[in-house]
């Protein structure tokens, strides 16, 4: 593993950099961590502009309307997606008792994915956008992204089909299923092949907008948690049947929910009814997953005090509980009538993506990096600080956005004009800037820690998890 060995292998095989075992997994997770910093920084910048609108006057590239999509794409496709894919490239071979199908292909995927995202940042800040939420990347980046997802299918399914272990664990179900349905969702959402009229377009867009969460982040994140929780606690999964119930109902109930973003818009009422019903029915997969996780933890709750990855996963699951209880409730017509268009919804999106799947991604990084690199974490203290900064930042943001959302809703309900409510929630927006500062500070620690772990000198012997 030292430099000489590396040089020697490099001489022997020009593809050594690409073929090294676990290299793709490592690089995906390192990229994910760096995108976490970049993405949250853009988020902080947007939040600051929201609070101090004259921060940037001259540069259109740094204006709020362009920074916001950059933030979303960097955290969604960069941070969360790349970190979870990196973890999947470690977990799936483990579960199949085989090697990754093609380390070389996976490394190419890593390079392409990063290239698309870097190009995406340049496009979005320069105003080249499709103007659909979560699908802002222009068509000439949609196509490479779609090809990347195809490559991802090949890698995951190649690994699964080469497996030495006959039984498919539920994680494999989730991940392999996701590889197949997410490209379909992506294709519908980004629609590189045809345009739609205004209001029909919104239906297709929110189908995508909600399913990028339901059929990509959720299935990957929950799938990974299904692997990590029993693995770390060494408890058997509470119920395999329950996990299969959760898996099969998630595809059934998540898919039609998109229209609950359009409940007061002039779209067909039957479609709204389908969306509301399936949103409430989401409690079935959510509860089956959470009951399974929390019962798997039986007798091992004390481990969160010492085990950092486990702490991340369980925090994520508590946020998941919160997200998925408020979600169905705010998707019902009357609650939505009150809360739609307010900051509450923004806050909800942050619980789901930052609180739940962001924490899953961080936990996965903390669990997998020592295993794929064979090195201990550079500093456990930094990792701890990262956890607490991220957690307090997320909770603060949750408070700020929820309070702001309720204030807006109440004010609009009594007929206060939007202009006055903007001023009303300004202090909460200031609080959000503070929470953003905490989260970004956490990411700085993460990036430093992961870079020192992977590329730095061998860390001092400071065991990360002595338990597992």
């Amino acid at each position, binding site marked *: 593993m030292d430099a000489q060995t590396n040089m020697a292998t490099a001489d022997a095989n020009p593809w050594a950099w690409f073929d090294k075992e676990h290299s793709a997994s490592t690089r995906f997770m390192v990229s994910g961590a760096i995108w976490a910093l970049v993405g949250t920084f853009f988020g902080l910048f947007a939040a600051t502009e929201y609070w101090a*609108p004259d921060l940037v006057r001259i540069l259109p590239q740094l*204006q709020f309307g362009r920074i916001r999509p950059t933030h979303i794409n960097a955290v969604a496709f960069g941070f969360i997606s790349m970190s979870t894919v990196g973890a999947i490239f470690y977990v799936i071979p483990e579960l199949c008792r085989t090697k990754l199908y093609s380390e070389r292909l996976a490394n190419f995927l890593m390079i392409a994915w990063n290239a698309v995202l870097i190009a995406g940042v340049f496009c979005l800040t320069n105003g080249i*956008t499709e103007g659909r939420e979560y699908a802002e990347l222009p068509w000439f980046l949609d196509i490479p992204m779609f090809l990347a997802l195809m490559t991802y299918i090949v890698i995951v399914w190649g690994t699964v089909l080469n497996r030495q272990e006959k039984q498919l664990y539920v994680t494999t179900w989730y991940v392999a299923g996701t590889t197949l349905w997410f490209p379909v969702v992506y294709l519908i959402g980004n629609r590189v092949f045809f*345009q739609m009229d*205004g209001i029909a377009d919104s239906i297709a867009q929110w*189908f995508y907008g909600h399913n990028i969460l339901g059929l990509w982040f959720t299935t990957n994140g929950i799938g990974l948690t299904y692997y990590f929780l029993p693995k770390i606690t060494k408890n058997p999964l509470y119920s395999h049947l329950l996990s299969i119930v959760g898996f099969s109902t998630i595809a059934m109930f998540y898919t039609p929910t998109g229209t609950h973003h359009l409940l007061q818009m*002039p779209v*067909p009422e039957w479609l709204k009814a389908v969306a509301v019903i399936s949103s409430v029915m989401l409690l079935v997969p959510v509860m089956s997953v959470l009951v399974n996780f929390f019962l798997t933890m039986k007798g091992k709750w004390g481990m969160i005090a010492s085990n950092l990855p486990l702490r991340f996963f369980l925090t994520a699951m508590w946020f998941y509980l919160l997200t998925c209880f408020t979600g169905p409730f705010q998707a019902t017509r009357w609650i939505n009538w009150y809360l739609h268009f307010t900051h509450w919804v923004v806050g909800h999106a942050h619980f789901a993506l930052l609180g739940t799947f962001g924490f899953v991604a961080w936990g996965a990084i903390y669990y997998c990096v020592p295993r794929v690199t064979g090195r201990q974490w550079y500093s456990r203290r930094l990792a701890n600080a990262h956890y607490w900064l991220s957690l307090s930042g997320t909770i603060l943001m949750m408070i700020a956005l929820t309070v702001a959302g309720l204030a807006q809703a109440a004010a609009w309900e009594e007929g206060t004009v939007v202009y006055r409510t903007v001023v009303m929630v300004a202090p909460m927006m200031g609080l959000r800037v503070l929470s953003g500062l905490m989260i970004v500070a956490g990411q700085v620690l993460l990036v430093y820690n992961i870079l020192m772990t992977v590329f730095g000198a061998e860390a001092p012997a400071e065991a990360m998890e002595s338990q597992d």
Partner: protein
Amino acid sequence: MTTQRANYLYPAIGMGLILSAIIFVVVLVPRWTFKPGQPKDLRNYTAQEQRGRTVYRREGCWYCHSMASRPQDWDHGVRSKASDYFWDKDGHLLGSERSGPDLANIGGKFPDEYHDQHHRQPRSLKPGSIMPSYDYLSKEEMGDVIAFLQGNGPNGTRALDVANGEMKWAFFTKTWNPTLPRVRTIPRADVQPGDKVIGEVNQDYVTVEGQPNGWEWVANWKHGVREREEIASRNYDAHPETPYKYTAEIEEFMYGTSHEAQNAKTPLNALATKTYANEDELHHAREKDPNAAAWTEVSFKEPEVLPTDVVGLKALEARRVVANQGRGIYNQKCSACHGLDGNGKGWASASMTRRAANFWEDKFKDYRTDTWYWRISRGVPGTQMPRWELMSGHLGGLHADQRLYLTAYLKYISQNKGLGKLQGTDAPNAGAPPSAASQPAAK
């Protein structure tokens, strides 16, 4: 291995079928069955408006401005219907958050010049607004995006008369479209001998060639949507403002503080000839005389005859200085809606269903200091009047002493029905308290 795989095959196929069926139902079926027809009341975008749409999308306006007026929305105009989006051939701009007002019915609400100024520096017209400044847009792009916005809604340029399919506000585009010769719409009585009359709007108004500016834009516009304004004014008359009633208990209950607490901190304290030490004292005073005020009022009315004694002259001068101090603040923060003269005809007042107050109305001359102060501080519910105390400094809020200077100015213009003796003098920098040199004069 093969048998093992077959166990997974059928559930996998089943799930694939379920997923396909759901996609079929929620994506493809609406695509085939839900096709709003071509609306009779809306025309297609012009090339310029289409370009404006692109700018609107590119700059991410839609992240903060929704483009769908919902049934529960107040003061956003008519509810949006499916056919309103018929011409949006390049995708939707519905938006998902409302950090700024809804724009589905923005067309015809403001003059182009208003939009231009508002896009360049929103806080010059809407203090406390958090909209970014779009100073960097080129002149063409600014024109495009304004043309796009002016098209929206039943009062917009894209609205068609359902009866004959013609443009509803034809004269309006003549007035605003920069590619056409500029015209002014003026009352027939105001036509001067040299004016070239190019069209008749109705029996009262004609259009003449020329460059409209300032208030005239608003006047033109107001005339154009007379119908809507009449509704607004009926509404205005039907709901007279509730007379302001001060009760210390209510103030304490609602805001946790009271005038007296603020009064103790402020320089305008010097103007009060009698104050009460605390709420109790005020309460007892009110039991004897219900009209007892927290501050005994200082009149800002200019006397008919100047006082002859030095003390009286000094006091008069002090009142003018204090009032003029508020004038700078007023010009910066208030004039966009209330007008530079305080007659309620500021630019931004054009669109309001509850219009900005006209301080020349009689009722305002009887407003007490505390009424003014708390109106400014708390805003006026149901209108666009902001709560000035809430805005933090960087958003253009007013500190307590600034609000009191403003109060002095408002009392001055309402009691004198105009600028009075302040006319022709410089308004000082907003927010700067009077220098130490002029301060003793107030005492």
